[in-house]
């Protein structure tokens, strides 16, 4: 088989609104059958991108192709896709069954086929027995499943989802996340999913497209985004708690990369890569910090520290760690765990290495084996 052409091709599309938001010169290729998450803060253009694919917005410039066909100016109904809205957009006066088969009825599908498809969609989403109820008589989770059932009942190969989980409580969200992912894989459909929640993106996506100000900040699989953030913004957005970003000038000289003046650098470190030590003598080097607080989360403890000349950092330590605010600690890390970004452009300095990193194993192996952090407390 030859190289498959992408299922959705967005080629240098722009859509600008009066307020200044929108997307600018955006190009995305989405492979068939993949689960793609558009991730970013509010106003970054992720929803606009989704609406452009859906046909609810029309591109000012550029072309959009779905399954090889140019759909740039095609109305939504002719694009062969379905969509799950953040509000679910269920028709409040119609029963669950009527909601699900609305599109089939509009398209004048055969009656007996509607019946089989409805039964199938109901059983797939676990809504059997609810078909005669009105949306107002359902719980939030059930409404969400009705929206999903409506999206899959027509058998469209593409499903768009606009923050479908943001109205659910945390526990349900976790379960539905898995259900959606399973459903996508079972049906083999392509899903484009918009969210501002990086946990959702990391746990569900084949490909995460991180957006900012209407442009793509970084696109790749979740591990790539986490391990090799392309920019300081990506580093700060992905991961919870986020990567600490410190000006390199606040660091001691011997941990800085060679040949680049520290003034133009930002240093990034993941919370799990930070080592805390209360005994300065036990470490060869370390930066001085003061504990400002800690949060015990069961399996791990977050320790918040302030560092002179910076916004502070977070260390993620396994298990329960007793450390009182005000304690003076020394922070250190394995050299390869450090991320370096240009201070002006925010771009990653891929080549930056430090002296202390010289003996460490290569970065990827390091990350894939185990977290590099060991609590010394």
């Amino acid at each position, binding site marked *: 088989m030859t190289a498959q052409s992408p299922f959705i091709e967005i080629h240098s599309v722009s859509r600008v609104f009066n307020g200044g938001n929108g997307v600018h010169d955006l190009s995305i290729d989405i492979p068939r059958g993949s689960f793609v998450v558009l991730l970013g803060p509010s106003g970054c253009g992720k929803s606009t991108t989704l609406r452009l694919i859906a046909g609810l917005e029309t591109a000012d410039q550029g072309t959009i192709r779905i399954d090889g066909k140019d759909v740039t100016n095609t109305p939504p109904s002719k694009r062969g*896709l379905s969509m799950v809205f953040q509000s679910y*957009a269920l028709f409040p*006066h119609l029963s669950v069954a009527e909601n699900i088969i*609305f599109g089939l009825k509009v398209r004048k599908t055969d009656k007996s086929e509607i019946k089989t498809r409805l039964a199938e969609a109901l059983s797939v989403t676990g809504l059997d027995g609810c078909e005669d109820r009105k949306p107002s008589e359902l719980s939030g989770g059930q409404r969400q499943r009705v929206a999903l059932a409506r999206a899959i009942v027509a058998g469209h190969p593409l499903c768009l989802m606009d923050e479908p989980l943001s109205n659910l409580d945390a526990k349900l969200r976790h379960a539905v996340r898995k259900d959606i992912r399973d459903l996508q894989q079972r049906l083999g459909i392509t899903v484009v999913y918009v969210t501002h929640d990086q946990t959702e993106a990391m746990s569900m996506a084949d490909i995460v497209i991180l957006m900012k100000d209407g442009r793509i900040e970084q696109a790749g699989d979740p591990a790539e985004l986490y391990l090799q953030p392309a920019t300081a913004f990506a580093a700060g957005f992905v991961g919870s708690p986020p990567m600490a970003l410190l000006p390199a000038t606040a660091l001691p000289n011997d941990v800085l990369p060679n040949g680049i003046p520290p003034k133009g650098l930002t240093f990034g470190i993941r919370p799990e890569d930070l080592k805390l030590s209360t005994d300065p003598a036990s470490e060869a080097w370390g930066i001085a910090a003061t504990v400002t607080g800690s949060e015990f989360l069961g399996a791990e403890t977050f320790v918040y520290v302030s560092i002179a000349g910076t916004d502070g950092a977070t260390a993620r330590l396994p298990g329960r760690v007793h450390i009182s605010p005000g304690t003076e600690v020394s922070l250190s890390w394995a050299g390869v765990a450090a991320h370096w970004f240009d201070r002006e452009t925010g771009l990653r300095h891929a080549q930056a290495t430090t002296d202390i990193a010289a003996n460490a194993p290569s970065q990827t192996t390091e990350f894939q084996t185990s977290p590099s952090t060991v609590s010394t407390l």
Partner: protein
Amino acid sequence: MPASAPFFFNAFQFFGLQDVPTMNEMAQLQKRRLALYGWMLAAPALALMSLFAFYPAIATLWHSLFSRGTSRRPSVFAGLDNYGDLFADPTFWTVASNNLIYAGITIPVSIFFALAMALWANAHIPARSFVRSAYFTPTILPMIAAANLWLFFYTPDLGVIDQITGFFGAEPTNWLGQPETALASIIIVTIWKESGFFMIFYLAALQTIPPDLREAAHIEGAGRWTYTRRILLPLLMPTTIFVFVNAMINSVKLIDHLFILTKGGPNNASKLILYWIWEMAFAYFDSPHAAAMTILVLLTLGIVAVIQFRLVEKRTHYR
């Protein structure tokens, strides 16, 4: 403490809380106070309604059962004679059928125009607020002023309408002066006056419908007409009922323009029930028959209201 209490474990006492009876008294006091507040809030409306609606209705009913009193013959109890007289009067049947035609045309047509104007004024069109206020203008005019305006429109030969029809070569028509066109002319004025008012309700209702529903329907393949028929109209049903009830009440109570335009003529061709009642009571001073007619109207409106609430409400989706 009540006598039976010592046999049982008293949780309130055990936890050092207040005695049970004291708590109950407090709760009862609060309940009584809440009931009192309720009555206090309802009292002004109740007093006014009793004074100006309930009492007059009962007094009218009572009055309709007595004969017309003169200085020579005092009024006596007449039973249902007044009602019998009404049914025997051919004017009654003319007026009733006039009012039926009037209601049967003004209600659906003004609802249709209100909805159409609301849909248009709610769309993203240029000068939207101008369109909205233009549609609303007839509502803020007093009916008397509007009727005078239309009097000029309907003037034979000189009025706007005859100017326009004359341009196409038609003969001048005395729109208000001949039995064939008088009622229709009245109906048009009423529709013109009412549609803008009802449009406001539809506009408000349209704005509560989330735009997501339209987008979802479009993605599901519904065109504009399917969306309107299957989503929009059912969701506007509560508003339609409200507007329908209002239009129905107006079709009985709105007679101001009759005084200016036709005075019910010619030959009762444009006479409506309320105008007839007014005529009987204050032009011919026949208050018992006017009272009987009023009771008939109240009865009819009451029955229609019950039917509406029973039948239509069941099929309506309220959010």
